[in-house]
């Protein structure tokens, strides 16, 4: 196969192919965008109001915590690692928040404590991975057991949160615009289209991550680390600090996701978020980040979360749809994007 390429005298192709290859860089995200558009169109034809403004915004508000988890996971996967502990750390965050609030701690103290717990756990995992050369998979697996176990040690049942601030965040609406809908009989109804503060926080995290990854030295090191650890080392970039920082960021994001989750459910639940690590990984993969590391965009992860959100929305709009099928659909989507990645990487070489 290769001899054919060598035999053909082809000095011209590089010039001709350059514009194409520039777009090839985005072909993964392009596939995600097209897929998301198709799914939305199919949903709109199947179910009324599927793509109404509020339904689209609900995609964000129902998945605000998943956005934050996926942002943290993007950092880790970009370095070529993986973090299986995020779902459990998120649950630990909700449980810690609920327990402390129950004991009368004020919300402005509780939130930093949860962030410190999440970030600290991530930091410990990062230290383990870097200094003892333990595979990220095993180290984060142990962290997952640990976090889930700590949840159960703290409480084995869901704790309701009646703190004023958390309640406010649970019910708060950020009104965006007024939508006028006219039904078949000609009656018009004016509704407020709103979003929640949690969504704004999640999008803020996303923007910060975007800026950090693309406009800072740290971000470039993250990409370099995914490209190759030894070469990053030879370039004189600090592998140790970046690696530990990436897992700390992921833990921090998981803690924040825990807070957003407890805003959303107004409770702390030790069995919350079982399997969310897989959803976060799936979102990152669907968003076009290469699982081998080194290539991908954090904005793609947002698209991945929205794609998963649309799959769940199908299930909500259609009462007959089996939960099993949503899982199968997610699996098929992940597979599709993994195979797509393989093909693109193979072609790039």
């Amino acid at each position: 196969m290769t001899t054919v390429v060598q035999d053909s005298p082809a000095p011209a192709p590089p010039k001709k192919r350059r514009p194409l290859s520039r777009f090839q860089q985005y072909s993964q995200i392009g596939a995600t965008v097209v897929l998301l558009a198709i799914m939305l169109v199919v949903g709109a034809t199947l179910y009324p109001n599927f793509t109404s403004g509020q339904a689209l915004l609900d995609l964000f508000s129902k998945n605000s915590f998943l956005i934050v988890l996926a942002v943290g996971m993007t950092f880790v996967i970009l370095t070529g690692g993986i973090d299986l502990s995020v779902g459990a750390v998120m649950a630990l965050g909700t449980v810690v928040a609920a327990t402390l609030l129950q004991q009368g701690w004020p919300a402005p103290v509780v939130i930093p404590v949860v962030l410190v717990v999440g970030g600290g756990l991530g930091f410990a995992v990062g230290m383990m991975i870097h200094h003892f050369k333990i595979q990220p998979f095993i180290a984060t697996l142990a962290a997952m057991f640990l976090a889930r176990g700590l949840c159960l040690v703290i409480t084995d049942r869901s704790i309701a949160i009646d703190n004023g601030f958390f309640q406010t965040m649970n019910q708060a609406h950020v009104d965006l615009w007024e939508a006028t809908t006219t039904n078949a009989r000609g009656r018009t109804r004016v509704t407020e289209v709103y979003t929640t503060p949690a969504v704004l926080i999640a999008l803020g995290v996303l923007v910060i991550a975007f800026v950090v990854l693309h406009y800072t030295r740290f971000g470039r090191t993250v990409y370099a680390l995914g490209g190759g650890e030894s070469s990053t080392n030879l370039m004189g970039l600090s592998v140790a600090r970046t690696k530990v920082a990436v897992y700390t960021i992921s833990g921090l994001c998981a803690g924040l996701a825990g807070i957003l989750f407890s805003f959303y459910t107004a409770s702390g639940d030790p069995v919350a978020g079982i399997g969310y690590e897989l959803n976060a990984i799936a979102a990152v993969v669907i968003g076009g980040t290469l699982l081998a590391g080194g290539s991908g965009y954090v904005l793609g992860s947002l698209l991945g979360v929205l794609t998963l959100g649309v799959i769940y929305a199908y299930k909500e709009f259609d009462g007959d749809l089996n939960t099993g099928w949503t899982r199968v659909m997610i699996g098929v989507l992940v597979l599709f994007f993994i195979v797509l990645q393989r093909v693109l990487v193979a072609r790039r070489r």
Partner: protein
Amino acid sequence: MKKLTANRLVWPALVLVALLVANFVANNSFFSVTVLDGNLFGPVVDILRRAAPIILVALGMTLVIATRGIDLSVGAVAAISGSWASMYIIDSGDRGSVTVVLTAVGVALLMAVVAGAWNGFLVSVLGIQPIVATLVLMTAGRGLAQVITGEKILYPDNSPAYKLIGGGYWLSVPFSILIAGAIFGITALLTRRTALGTLIESVGVNPEASRLAGVQSRSITWIVYIFAGLCAGLAGLMLTSNSTSADPNSIGLFIELDAILAVVIGGTSLAGGRFSLAGTLIGAFIIETMDNFIVIAVSPRTTDVFKACVVIVVCIMQSPQARAWIAGLFRRGRSGGGDTSTGSPVTATPLSGSSPATPGTTAGAAAPAVTPTPTLTPTTGTRTS
């Protein structure tokens, strides 16, 4: 003596013995075995019976890890085969019929083989990283199991032939132990008396080099994943038959993690290229005995924390960096001690020391939280039924 300490199996075995002794101290009737209706009963027999599914899954996992892979989908495969067999038995008119059960078992195992072949295809033909490739089936597999059962929890009861697989007795010994023992024996024979084991290890060391050396690394990888799928399917049958209920959401939940843990404790390196079946067996027993000890002496709620601590300690002890560091400490203390035995004695001190020490610390952390609540059977208790 030096030969003994150099053996990799000594330290896991010592941990197991220490756990058994701890169990005996916590519960003096731990080693008592009674014969009831001609069948053996007792805590040890119970541990063996409950360990059977983990042993099976861990056996498959050992070979997969030996090829430098990993199979995350075993829990989902167990769920698929368990729910399909239960569904078939319930739907058939005659639940007691042996033919029905044999058909159910046969088809369920076939599905597990297909699932394993699918993983093998993704890994060996498409060349996808094993973690990622098996993640697909891990996500989708439980969904498939839910689709099979129509999102219901099934109760394949009053089928004695099916009950036999996981909860029955044969020749006064629990049947599941016999199955697991037979599979273990066959695997050990095939990998250690034929060249298969060496070939698997060579693929684990370097698939490309072994391919160039004439090893059919692609088919070896397929075989290994198919075997892992088959073992997982059998484990799923055992789990559903023992509990006479099949909830696709909880059959074999986290069994992949227990299996990986058993393999790691048994001394098989996750980097591939070397494996120890006996080590895996000991690892599986350690996990079940540990669970049992926690239930008796500490609290079922601390199981996960305890396991996490064990994984962390074992992994850190396996890392060359930690060994070098501790060896350095020893050398400084002894001033010029020989470095001929760097690895194993170092692993020993923390390993055997950790098992009595860690429950103490976790118990201390758990005590205030545990005492006020009378209900002590959260999700961790489900697997023990």
